[in-house]
């Protein structure tokens, strides 16, 4: 193979985007730990960590150094292989999920190249995200079981039971959304909201179900039963120390980031923002189409991150407001409230579509063989 062709494949803009997505995910997860402590402090009338660097911004670094230098502890009778595998799996699955999230529309380069601001585009993006995220619970289960500790095992069992109960309602909420959008591709869903209203308008009930389930999926308060310090010491990570513990905590924050990104994309318009057509048209007349498209794309990415940060804040805000659910309350909420409401939501959505017609005109557009990027440019 020609060497220049090879390098152009490896060092293409798209591979840079993949690296950037990976890096940004890790960076945001790192600073989520800092943000969590600051938000917690502010909600409790304190100031939080402010000693390491200006405003305590180097705190995550200090935490990482601390975790790396701690003793690697293996409990007696633990299954060593699985004990190490658990946190690795949790981390890997958490990181995998951000691959399909569209962080922006496309950038058009001068040489006619089109760069998607998304690591990989798959037409079943939504299924992929939920498949990968539900794999994450295996990390918790394996870690909890391999610890050879009853508290860990209880935490693992809770994690599994919780994941099963809440994924059901979450899937149902998504089915209703699917009926509205007609596609599983996260990018398509985001692009659809370019022209019309955000999906939250069509699916308010579905969104509430989804966000409650997202809290359960990411094991955040009020559904942090798997770790539950007051009952189970540390739950599934009772026996973990050093960076293995760090990986579990890190995976949780990555999950929060992914959940926030998915919620912004599915229900809050993704990288679309009000007034983008106005901006696009005025910029096209003055600066040309290429420039206008790129400016709108970059602004859209900024807006998407603003939405994501809001949801990350929301996760923390809820954590420091609500107490933890009791185990039976958790199960009752999942099975006797969220699940029936989710089914009702599907029925209602179906009835609306039947009587008022579906939210088009994107149905016939997505049947065209034109690539998405080109279509959005043409549609304006």
């Amino acid at each position, binding site marked *: 193979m020609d060497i220049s062709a090879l390098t152009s494949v490896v060092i293409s803009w798209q591979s840079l985007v993949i690296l950037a997505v990976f890096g940004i995910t890790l960076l945001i997860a790192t600073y989520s730990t800092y943000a969590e402590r600051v*938000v917690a402090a*502010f*909600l*409790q*009338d*304190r*100031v939080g960590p*402010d000693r390491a660097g200006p405003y305590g911004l180097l705190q995550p670094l200090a935490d990482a150094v601390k975790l790396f230098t701690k003793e690697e502890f293996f409990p007696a009778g633990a299954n060593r292989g699985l004990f190490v595998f658990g946190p690795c799996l949790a981390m890997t699955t958490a990181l995998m999920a951000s691959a399909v999230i569209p962080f922006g529309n496309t950038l058009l380069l001068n040489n006619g190249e089109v760069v998607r601001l998304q690591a990989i585009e798959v037409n079943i993006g939504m299924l992929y995200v939920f498949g990968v995220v539900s794999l994450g619970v295996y990390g918790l289960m394996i870690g909890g079981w391999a610890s050879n500790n009853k508290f860990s095992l209880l935490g693992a069992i809770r994690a599994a039971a919780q994941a099963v109960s809440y994924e059901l309602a979450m899937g149902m909420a998504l089915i209703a959304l699917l009926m509205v959008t007609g596609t599983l591709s996260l990018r398509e869903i985001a692009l659809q909201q370019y022209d019309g209203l955000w999906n939250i308008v069509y699916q308010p009930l579905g969104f*509430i179900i989804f966000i409650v389930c997202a809290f359960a999926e990411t094991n955040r308060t009020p559904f942090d039963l798997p770790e539950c310090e007051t009952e189970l010491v540390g739950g599934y990570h009772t026996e973990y120390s050093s960076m293995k513990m760090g990986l579990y905590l890190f995976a949780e924050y990555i999950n929060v980031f992914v959940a926030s990104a998915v919620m912004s994309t599915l229900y809050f318009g993704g990288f679309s923002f009000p007034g983008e057509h106005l901006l696009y048209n005025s910029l096209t007349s003055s600066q040309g189409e290429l420039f206008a498209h790129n400016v709108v794309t970059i602004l859209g990415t900024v807006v998407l991150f603003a939405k994501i940060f809001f949801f990350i804040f929301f996760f923390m*805000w*809820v954590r*420091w*407001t*609500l107490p933890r659910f009791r185990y039976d309350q958790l199960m009752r909420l999942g099975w006797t409230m969220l699940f029936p409401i989710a089914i009702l939501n599907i029925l209602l959505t179906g009835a609306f579509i039947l009587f008022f017609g579906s939210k088009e005109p994107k149905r016939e557009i997505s049947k065209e063989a034109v690539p998405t990027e080109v279509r959005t440019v043409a549609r304006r």
Partner: protein
Amino acid sequence: MKLTNRSKHLEKKPMTLAERAYLPAILTGMGITLKHFFSKKATIRYPEELRPIAPTFRGLHVLKRDEAGRERCTACGLCAVACPAEAITMVAGERKKGEQNLYREEKYAVSYEINMLRCIFCGLCEEACPKAAIYLQADKMAPPRFERDEFIYGKDRLVEPVDPNARSKRGIQLTAEQAEALARRMAGIE
């Protein structure tokens, strides 16, 4: 059977739909926490910021000098007697010839030690002193240390310096070895 008339009738109504849906209550709670998010913080960033101290605060002791710069203490021991915590020890000595500019009276304290771990900062030594020699300062506290024996303050750390401006510079009194070790450590960091 009703024994008294003081029993209260408790109503246990079934929860309304809004209560059972949790969400209104959750939103109210989140409003409360958000209010706290923007409220004034109670934290005092200690080394930079200090809690305001009352003018009558009883802090670290000082052994005063008179206008001529002579130590006022005559080692009479009344402060040690008055001390309820038995924190004060002293050894008295006789003033030699040529030391008139150092000590006000013919008898003086050769050593004067206060154990800050025992001291309860009641100020009774101050009241007992007939020579107005010992005072508890309002603006200075015994700082935390790592070693127990560092809390035993001798004359080196208690007696007021001759130059009143030197007071603020007076910090933890280190021995020569300690000072050297500290200097070496600081050089290593920078």
